[in-house]
Structure formats: structure tokens, C-alpha cells
């Protein structure tokens, strides 16, 4: 047997490096019929904000070559609804780590939301979303400026003692600068990448496909760019890096780990194959065995240059 468990620091240890990305896996419950959710390393539940958000108007989806663009806009019923109604249903997951993705449009909102989630015993970490391209205020603007990123992470760090992941946007000139700002402000780890700002046009009507004109692109097509960014950040920060962006197979996940990621997240691929997460867990184990490795740490950052 190989050891797949990974330690991300500050009391966040996963049974294996495979998590599901926020916004692509609901609250895990939606997938119970299709896969053993509890066998995954972690599940990062839908982006949660202080207050209810209705999100953007329909249409919110454009399919692209080996990818898709979404413009959901953080639709959720707010953190109090999460704590009261959804959190109790998640207590049945005892092996996987349930992590809440926290979003906001002001520092005060991020802080208030993080404080409420900090009170939930069964949630060992939050993923601070400073990278959503689909909200008018806040969201990505915090993640595109190192000073702003530092300020919001610092403020949340003060009220959130458990593991703090900061999710980064790829829509910047230097993702390394933002990652370092998050590290210096006290992040325990960084996850990247969120979606790429993009658009699609219906040539029959000459109108944008999405109600918001632009949206965030995800899916297999973005993987090589995400991989490059994860490699750059892993070489620049000391905290663990969680890699995501287009991962659709065990081979993709292994590339991210070789590039330096301690854990990975699977996103859009969940829509096509709801059992993909567990297939990736098995594929990584098989790869380690075939390559005579006993522990996933032997693979991490093992890129040969």
C-alpha cells in the first residue's frame, strides 16, 4: 500500500490529495448517488457569502472547446443558511475534509462570513475566494492587487485560527506576486487557479452568449496554463500549493503534483463524470506503485529539469 495522505499544515491533513473545487460539487450531497464522497481527500463546498445572493441572470453557461464559461455569480443562500440548514447534513462525512469557500464584496463581509464558519467544529479550513470573476464588486478585484489581497487575508487571519487557504485568480500579470502577498499576510496555503475571464458570442444573433457578456472559463482546455502558474507559485512560496484548473484524469493530477502541488482540486470534470475524483485517487495510487514510490511526498515537486 502506498501512503496518499498529505499534510497541508495548521491541522489540515487529507487522506489523499484529491479535493473537489468549489462550485462544481455542490455541497457533496448532490453527488452521493454517484460516488463515495467520503473517500475523497476533501470537498470544497459552494462559494458562501455573508448574505443571500441570487447570482446573475440566465444564460449562465457557454460550452467551449474542451471547456465551458460560467457566469453563475456566487448564487447561494448566505452563511447563516449554510450553518443552520446545510452544515448538519455534512456531519455524516467523517473521513473527507469539508472546506467552505468564503466570498465577499468587502473586507467586513469576508471577515463576518469567516467568523461564522470558524464556529463550525466539523469545518477544518476555509478557502478564501479572492478570485471570482463573476461578481461586480469585490471578488476578483481583491485578488488582482497584492496590497488588497494582503489586506483581506490579514483581516480574515485575525478572526480565523484554523487552516486558511487563499484561492488565486489567473487573471493577473504575476500570480506569484499575489501568492507571496497572501503568504506574507498569514495564509496557510494557496489554491490556484480560479477561472479565466473570457467570453463567447452567438454569431446568429451577434449577441453575447452569457447574460453578463464575460464569464469565467474552466475545463480541460485551461490545464496547461494552470499547470504553468502552479509550478511558478510552488517555486516562489514556502506554504503548500493546491493545484487546480482543468484536471480531468489521474495523469493531469500527477502533473500538478510533480510541478509542486501538495493537493489538487477537480472542477468541471465532475460535471462529465461524477465519479472522477475517486478514479483520480485510484490512478495516483496505481502510478506511485508502478513507479516504486511508497509515499506521495516522493512525487511532490519531483520535476526533473
Amino acid at each position, binding site marked *: 500500500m502506498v501512503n496518499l495522505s498529505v499534510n497541508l499544515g495548521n491541522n489540515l491533513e487529507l487522506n489523499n490529495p484529491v479535493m473537489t473545487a468549489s462550485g*462544481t460539487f455542490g455541497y457533496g450531497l448532490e453527488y452521493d*448517488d454517484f460516488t463515495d464522497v467520503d473517500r475523497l481527500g476533501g470537498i470544497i463546498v459552494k462559494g458562501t457569502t455573508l448574505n443571500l445572493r441570487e447570482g446573475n441572470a440566465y444564460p449562465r*453557461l457557454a*460550452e467551449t472547446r474542451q471547456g465551458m464559461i460560467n457566469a453563475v455569480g456566487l448564487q447561494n443562500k448566505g452563511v447563516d443558511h449554510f450553518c443552520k440548514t446545510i452544515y448538519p447534513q455534512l456531519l455524516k462525512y467523517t473521513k473527507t475534509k469539508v472546506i467552505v469557500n468564503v466570498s465577499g464584496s468587502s473586507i467586513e463581509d469576508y471577515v463576518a462570513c469567516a467568523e461564522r464558519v470558524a464556529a463550525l467544529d466539523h469545518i477544518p479550513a476555509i478557502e478564501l475566494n479572492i478570485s471570482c470573476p463573476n461578481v461586480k464588486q469585490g471578488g476578483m478585484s481583491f485578488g488582482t492587487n497584492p496590497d488588497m489581497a494582503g489586506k483581506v487575508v490579514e483581516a480574515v487571519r485575525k478572526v480565523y485560527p484554523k487552516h486558511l487557504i487563499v484561492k488565486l485568480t489567473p487573471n493577473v500579470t504575476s500570480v506569484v506576486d499575489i501568492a507571496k502577498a497572501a503568504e506574507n499576510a498569514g495564509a496557510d496555503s494557496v489554491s490556484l487557479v480560479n477561472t479565466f475571464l473570457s467570453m463567447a458570442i452567438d454569431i446568429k444573433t451577434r449577441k453575447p452568449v452569457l447574460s453578463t457578456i464575460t464569464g469565467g472559463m474552466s475545463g480541460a482546455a485551461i490545464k496547461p496554463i494552470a499547470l504553468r502558474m502552479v509550478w511558478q507559485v510552488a517555486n516562489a512560496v514556502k506554504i503548500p500549493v493546491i493545484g487546480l484548473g482543468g484536471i480531468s484524469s489521474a495523469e493531469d493530477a500527477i502533473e500538478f503534483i510533480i510541478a509542486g502541488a501538495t493537493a489538487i482540486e477537480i472542477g468541471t470534470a465532475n*460535471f462529465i463524470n461524477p465519479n472522477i475524483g475517486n478514479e483520480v485517487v485510484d490512478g495516483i495510487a496505481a502510478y506511485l506503485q508502478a513507479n516504486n514510490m511508497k509515499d506521495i511526498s516522493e512525487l511532490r515537486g519531483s520535476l526533473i529539469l
Partner: protein
Amino acid sequence: MHKHHSTDFTVVDIHSLNQSCYQMVLKHPDTLPKVSPGQFVQVQLPDSATSYLRRPISIHDADFEANTLTLLIRKAGKGTELLSHVKEGEKINLLYPLGNGFTLDQAKIGNAPLLIGGGVGIAPLYMAAKALKEAGANPTVLLGARNESDLLKKEAFAAITETQCTTEDGTYGTKGFVTDHANMKENIHQYTSIIVCGPMPMMRAIARVAEAENIPCQVSLENKMACGIGACLCCVTETTDGHNTCVCTQGPVFDSKNVKW
């Protein structure tokens, strides 16, 4: 007990119905679980460079003796075009049964429902008509299309129950839209409720008539979806409670009064 399943079905029949639509019969490897009229499946596409996500398709018919599901599919884009080229014997993965089907309880919809289908929107009505007939109701079917060749399955519907047709060009049945038919005008009060699936403008027009005439009306929406199981929140429709509501899990069938038209 699982509510939803992910299963590799085998294509046992695929043939075209006209230039743009085709029918696919898929056999379950074992015993087909219960599916209800109005529910849908998420069809995984063959691996391709151009198409990526699953396609949500209504269940047209289910045969629990042969363990088969029948789908009617319109080539609406590259994905459904690609799917039209699969061969008998090939395997296709479905997530199913998804969504909430039609309410067919006669205590709620009466014993004389009017089922209206537009274009490929007739697909989910076939199973509904059969179930209603078996339950002793007296459904009437009204099918609308642009022309005779786009009128799908009219003989199959007529074999179950009284079926009338409209075509926009008058090549079959009454000339005009379904809303021009006597069933939607002077005869409308013969019906205890309406069930409709078709293009949005048609469903909107029928919902308006139903509301004005105070007849209960169920509509089946077909918004673009990524996951089909309530995770991505892409397929929402605005409902009268003021929320964006997932068509995949809260629909695809809605009471027409709950949809913001």
C-alpha cells in the same frame, strides 16, 4: 437506496425521424429502475474535440420489460449532431432519472388533461399520455410543428389517445400555431388541465391562456445545463418567489404560475 444512477447503456436502435431529429433506444445492462414521465437523462457524449459537457434529454419512453429507454433528440448543435452518429452496440453513459416529472394525479389535474407538444418538445408527453390512459384518464394530445415532416410521432400518439395536429404551413392538420387550434380557444373548457413542452414562446403563450382561463398548467423547461444534478447552478429560471431556481432539480416541470415569463 440511490435515487439517481450512472449506468452504461447499450444503443440497440438509432434511426432518423426527419432531417433534424432522431430516435435512440438504449438498453440497460440489467433491470431498468423506475423512471417517471417528464424526467430526463444526462447523456455523456463520445470523446470529441468540439463538444464537452453532457446533454440533457427528456425520456420519451421506458419499457420495463425490455429494460430500455427511448430518447428523441434534435440536432440542435455539434453535441447532438455527434451523438446522432453513434452505432448500434456502442455504449453510452447516462445519469438518470433526473428532475421532477409531470404531476399526473387525477385528483390534482382532473381526468381530461390536454397535452400540448411543439417540435421535439413532444418527447416527454408520450410517456405521460400512456400513463394517464393507463390510470383511466382521458387525455387529448395536441401536436404542433412547422410542417408535416417536423410533426413527430403523430401515429404513435394517435394509437394511445385522441390526437390533433397543427402545422404552421398547413401541410397537416389545422394551419397555424397550437394556440390557434379550437382546443386552445372555444373548446378549452373541456379540459381540466394543460401539460406543455415546446419552444419558450409557445409555452409562454399557452401559460398566458391557461392563467386567463383559470386552468392548471404544467410546463417543462429545457434550459442549458452543465451538471444536471443541482451542483453548478447554470440552468436557473426566475420563479415568482423571487429566486433563481434550478431547472434540473426543482424542474424541469413547473406550475406555469410559478415561472416568471
